[in-house]
């Protein structure tokens, strides 16, 4: 069980969240290989991985998470607008 720190609600158990896949992805200007890469390719690193999660049973906000895929340690979480903690 992961303990994930929601930027708004604080530390909550994984069951309150949904995983939203890889984060910080930039859409290409328009060429097909670029879109193919965006839609179907994932980094899948062994180590820190930038992801998005949503606190679906809590405040329903999406946020950034950096998770180590080998240890499942949550390295950091932050709001989508980049600001610190709960405003």
């Amino acid at each position, binding site marked *: 069980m992961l303990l994930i720190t929601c930027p708004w*609600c*604080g*530390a909550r*158990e994984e069951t*309150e969240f949904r995983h939203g896949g890889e984060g910080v992805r930039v859409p290409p200007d328009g060429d097909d290989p670029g879109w193919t890469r965006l839609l179907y390719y994932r980094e899948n690193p062994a180590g820190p991985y930038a992801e998005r999660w949503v606190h679906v*049973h*809590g405040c329903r*906000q999406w946020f950034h998470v950096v998770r180590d895929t080998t240890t499942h340690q949550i390295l950091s979480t932050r709001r989508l607008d980049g600001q610190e903690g709960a405003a």
Partner: protein
Amino acid sequence: MADGSPLAAHLGALISKASFDDARLTPGARVDLLSVRARRSAVQRVATALGQESLPPPNACRATILGDCFWLRPDEWLFATVPGGAEAAMKTVEPHLLDDGAVIDVSGSRIILELTGPRTRDVLSSCCPLDLDPSVFEPGRCAQSIIGKVSVLLHLVDATPRWHLFVPPSYVDYVVRWLADGIEGARAEQENALATTPHSSPVRMLP
């Protein structure tokens, strides 16, 4: 159960069978519910109109002239106002939102269950992943979490502890069964403790 109770008769029997002095589940007061969504500028106007410095911060509940106000998410608050008071409350809030928000009558979207007694933290811990330790979860706090698999809004009203659980009506049956099971467990644990602990021999720790 009284007529018009949100809890069907079969649940009433289940609850009264499970409840004991240290953990009691009852239907909570009926309320009208308002969802207020507002951008930052409108939030301040609404708060001022209600005589508050600000609307509650994340995971907090505050009493206002429109009843208890709960933080739901960065741009949404829930007001629990008196039965039949939704329309008047909407008229109070709406003029201050201008084009920066919306107020919606969501009465009936949730039913309140009240859970009281010193063992209720154990009862809730059996079905809810929140950290409910008194040092972390103080009276006046609220939190959205899950009971079993259902989203609920928990509010710690006072230090009895007295909890209000805001549950979607269609899931009340499910949530009550989880809670009744937890209460049953707490009661069995207490009865076992009473049966096995002699009354006059406090445990001594050897140095």
